[in-house]
């Protein structure tokens, strides 16, 4: 358990490796963000038949850097009704979890054959991930719990209406999707038998069929993808900063580099979530190595998978219109959570049935039977709630002015 670099106790070499790994992780995320913002703007521009950024550097590659430098030179305002202390604290609460979550992602390493993903550096074995804490993927949930505070407090402390509305929207929807996120991760843990991200990647080594996306039967992956999009507040779930409704949402009052921090955290989280998805469902850096050193191939595969998810997020943004708030909450609570809970129990039942020698067909049929009953109960409850609401809302008088004045809705 844990990174083998610590097995021999702490000495200067170990500390050096830790520091270098943390720096590499830090740089990876920073460079990734700079690239991601450019990538997103370019792809969106292409999808909308525009050119996109093309002035700063070759193909506009330095655009993000230029924007960042510009932001540093902008005046930093804090509204006079704001709660100064919390207003200044909020950017830290947003950025720190974004960096920290990335530490548990293995970005390379050979897991096939006799290799267990370790690399020998200066006489120490080490994993190619910044940290492998015993809590493993639970660290992801803990960090997304903290990230909620960054947004919630940013909005609340601004002392202004739009940020407040944005942050209350955000905190309710983020905690909702955190539940769906947690449930779909349990399915991965169920198959890998460990919380450690390293072990999770190890258990997926081999062919594509060994990846968790296949072994968990796609449903947890889809739930995770949707929940992650909502957790990131990315379109089509970006009600937190729905420009047409609440200006900039929770960061409306932020300006200068403080605003930049929120912007950065958002894209960092996108990269981190994509990396987590690669780790949990797509085998991490696992992939064939036809020629040359397998280690380099592992970096290649990790990057390719990461890019695929980044592109997917951009594509979702370009293709889908924004959800309405009630649709967002309904999707999270009434569909994703029951679905992933049921699927998880079914996966567990199938595995235990295999161990105990039960007939798989019977297990699946019984599982589906229970699922149908549960879905019936849920649908019934939704209908009861709808009926109560209808009874509660008094019918409008049948007046013509009604229809003509404010319009028929």
């Amino acid at each position, binding site marked *: *358990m844990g990174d083998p670099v610590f097995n021999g106790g702490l000495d200067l070499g170990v500390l050096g490796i830790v520091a270098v790994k943390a720096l590499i992780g830090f740089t990876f995320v920073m460079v990734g963000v700079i690239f991601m913002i450019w990538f997103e703007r370019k792809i969106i521009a292409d999808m909308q038949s525009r050119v996109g950024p093309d002035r700063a550097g070759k193909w506009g590659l330095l655009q993000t850097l230029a924007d960042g430098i510009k932001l540093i030179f902008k005046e930093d305002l804090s509204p006079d009704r704001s*709660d100064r*202390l*919390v207003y200044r*604290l909020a950017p830290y609460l947003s950025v720190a979890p974004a960096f920290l979550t990335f530490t548990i992602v293995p970005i390379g390493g050979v897991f096939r054959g006799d290799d267990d993903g370790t690399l020998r550096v200066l006489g120490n074995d080490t994993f190619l991930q910044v940290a492998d*804490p*015993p*809590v493993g993927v*639970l*660290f992801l*949930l*803990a960090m*997304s*719990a*903290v990230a*909620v*505070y960054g947004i*919630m*407090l940013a909005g*609340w402390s601004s002392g202004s*209406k739009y940020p*407040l*509305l944005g942050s*209350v*929207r955000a*905190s*309710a929807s983020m*905690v909702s999707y*955190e539940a769906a996120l947690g449930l779909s991760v349990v399915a991965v843990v169920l198959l890998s038998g*460990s*919380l450690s991200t390293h072990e999770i990647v190890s258990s997926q080594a081999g062919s594509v069929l060994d990846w968790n996306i296949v072994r968990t039967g796609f449903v947890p992956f889809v739930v995770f993808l949707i929940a992650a999009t909502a957790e990131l507040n990315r379109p089509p779930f970006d009600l937190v900063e729905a420009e047409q409704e609440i200006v900039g949402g929770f960061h409306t009052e932020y300006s200068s580099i403080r605003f930049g921090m929120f912007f950065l955290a958002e894209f960092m989280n996108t990269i981190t979530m994509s990396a987590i998805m690669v780790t949990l469902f797509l085998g991490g850096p696992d992939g064939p190595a036809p020629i040359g050193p397998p280690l380099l191939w592992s970096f290649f595969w990790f990057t390719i998978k990461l890019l695929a998810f980044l592109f997917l997020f951009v594509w979702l943004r370009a293709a889908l219109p924004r959800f309405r*708030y009630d649709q967002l909450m309904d999707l999270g609570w009434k569909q994703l959570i029951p679905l992933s809970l049921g699927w998880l129990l079914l996966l567990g039942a199938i595995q235990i049935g295999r161990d105990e020698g039960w007939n798989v067909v019977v297990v699946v049929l019984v599982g589906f039977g229970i699922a149908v009953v549960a879905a019936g109960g849920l649908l019934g409850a939704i209908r009861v*709630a709808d009926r*109560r*609401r209808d*009874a*509660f809302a*008094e019918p409008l008088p049948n007046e013509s002015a009604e229809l003509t004045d404010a319009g028929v809705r």
Partner: protein
Amino acid sequence: MVDTIVFVLAALVILSGALGVILARNPVHSALMLIMTLFGVAVVFVAQEAHFLAAVQVIVYAGAIVVLFLFVIMLLGVDQADSIETEPIGGQRPAAGVVALASVGLLVLLAVRAVQVSSGARSTSSALDGEGTNLEKLARVLFTDYLFAFEATSALLVIAVVGAVVLARKPAAEDVQDRKGVGALGRTRSGSGR
């Protein structure tokens, strides 16, 4: 050495957070201080090698329960100042005084006993037995020896949900005939974040 430093730092965080909770004037600041305290406790858990508990501490307490607190604060209005002259529950103040005195007495007693009894030796109660990681050992105990407590938790959760619904129950339909735009469960129109 490292253990001591970690413990002292965590204790400082816990205590200053706890003091902040009761001393902060703004309820949102109090909630923030509470989060700080919970993080300090999580660090202490990590120092005791109780990794899963540390994660639970952050995920459930900091991630869910304090969010609930914050929603309740926002539900009631942050700047609502209550007059301290009126007592919502009769006899609350003398009762609080008695409880506070008793607590202080207990603490003093405990401190005195601790000075007498503690020898600086390590605790004799051992860690959980068995193979595997901390989480596996915990799980083995939880789902066998403490099965009843585990299942009772589900009953507790059901009670919590029913309690929440009853507390937030919408007024009967006829009571609100005159209030326009009242949503489910008595939701009012003002500032619902939409």
